């Protein structure tokens, strides 16, 4: 479908505000820890595409999810990942880009055996 507009050339005049070039060399990446809805939504981060995947695991996630009692119990070898709806086996020492993480990609991860406070998925 396309837009209903009085200006026939509307589509050509569209200015997309969230193009990757507007983020000063970063790309937006969304991260979400499944079954831990104390964190109400996936979080957005402006990250350099060349950042190693390991930095997400070792730096970003502990800073933002570390306050949850389950976080310290995560066995990272067992974590399963999904990138933009498809399973992902991340290569930790490769960059986000090399792992296929693009602008506005959504990375969800499951931590088997951990399903939130008192198993409530919170």
């Amino acid at each position, binding site marked *: 479908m396309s837009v209903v507009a009085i200006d026939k050339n509307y589509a050509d005049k569209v200015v*997309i505000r969230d193009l990757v070039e507007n983020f000063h060399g970063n790309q937006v990446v969304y991260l*979400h820890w499944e079954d831990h809805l104390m964190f109400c939504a*996936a979080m*957005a981060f402006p990250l350099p595409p060349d950042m190693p995947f390991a930095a997400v695991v070792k730096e970003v996630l502990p800073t933002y999810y570390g306050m949850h009692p389950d976080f310290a119990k995560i066995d990272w070898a067992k974590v399963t990942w999904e990138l933009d709806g498809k399973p992902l086996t991340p290569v930790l020492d490769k960059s986000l880009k090399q792992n296929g993480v693009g602008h*506005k990609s959504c990375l969800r991860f499951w931590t088997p055996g951990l399903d939130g406070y008192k198993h409530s998925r919170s």
Partner: protein
Amino acid sequence: MNAPAKLGLKQRYSLLTHGLDWTPSYQPMEKIYPYAEFEGIKIHDWSKWEDPFRLTMESYWKFQAEKERKLYAVLDSFAQNNGQMNLSDPKYVNAIKLFLTGISPEEYQAHRGFAHVGRQLPGVGPRVAAQMQSLDELRHVQTQIHTLSHYNKFFDGFHEFSHQHDRVWYLSVPKSFFDDARTAGPFEYFIAIGFAFEYVLTNLLFVPFMSGAAYNGDLATVTFGFSAQSDESRHMTLGIEVIKFLLEQDPGNLPIVQKWVDKWFWRGHRVLGLVAMMMDYMLPKKIMSWREAWEIYFTEAGGSLFQDLARYGLKVPKYADVATAEADHISHQNWLTFYQYCHAAGFHTWLPSAEEMDWLSEKYPTTFDQYYRPRFELLAEQEKEGKRFYNNGLPQLCSVCQIPMVYTEHKDPGTISFRSSEYKGDKYHTCSDGCKDIFDNEPEKYSQAWLPVHQIFQGNCGGASMEDVLKWYKMNIGADNLDQAGSPDQKMWDEWMAARSRVAG
């Protein structure tokens, strides 16, 4: 000499409202009304429009002036008697902070929208009707600002509602709703605001706020509610008239109208999630649950409305069943969102008390104890340890409704509902099938969204730190934001109550 007989009301109405238009001769109609046709709506006979207002401008001014006199008399007496001290609890004030910042500016948007429609529709009947509604909306924003300005003398969070409307992350939700409607064509605007919002959903906005005000001792807000009420019923009549008129004029209008009804029902449902959390969490004295309000005002009232409209071929809005299923969740999900992000909000939040949690269990027997009580218990444990949870990350936002993507699959309340679309090689995320459909129908429009989180990352919101952004919002850090406990509002209230009991001896 015989004095001329005075005209009856009906005659006067007829003479003052009919036959005032003329057929232009210098310019073709399509140049005078350039917005009338591009949406694909066909109108064959504007004279078939039945004016539901039955009101001349002359009597309109008289009615409105009378209402104003009554309202301002009550407001004066409220101020003179320090009415703010009769509130049930200072937590209540946060509900009207949300009203002033989230709803009043939209009254102004509605005013502008109806002014535009009132200029652009080729039929004289709907033009007069839209003009009156435009004036009503302007009156509403004014009376709301005047009423709530009294609270601004004492409480935090009221002072920059106008500045904040264009900037603050959660205010982009109602703002984008009206921006979307106002940038549509005049017929879509009329269906969006006049029908979907004013007719189908308005009771879910006004009744909870006004009853909530009455239950919690806020006489001032009740009064502006009453003052708006007769206008609102006129708007509802107009909303139903416009939909019947469009559907009667041409059978080709039905699919267009149905699509607008589907879209604006869903958008309205999303915006009303703010009212849901207000009812279930922000009112110290509760009126009814959001779930109950949804049953009465949407399932029952909306159900019979759509039965009535079935003769035109119009169907119940798409995803009405999803919205109904979500009524068991959205208030909890929204409140938990504001709880963890109220360091960046212009009002305070708090955890529900044990009694309130029991009330929520009773009202939400199938969801609260299973999903939300444990979440509040976890947060309470953290508070107890002195680690009140504030989320340091910024949330992913829906590209259409602009709400953080907090809503869950309606059949799986433990899993966030992620939807996405591709447009010109980029990904766009939406929170639901309803928002995804809206995006996919007009990606050109929604790909331009000014999403607050992304704007912060781009450096367009005052700076990189939370403090920079809050300053750019003109929020008073440490006063307007954070938990109710320890807020200057709460401290002032406690002092008032202590002084009152000293006087009472």
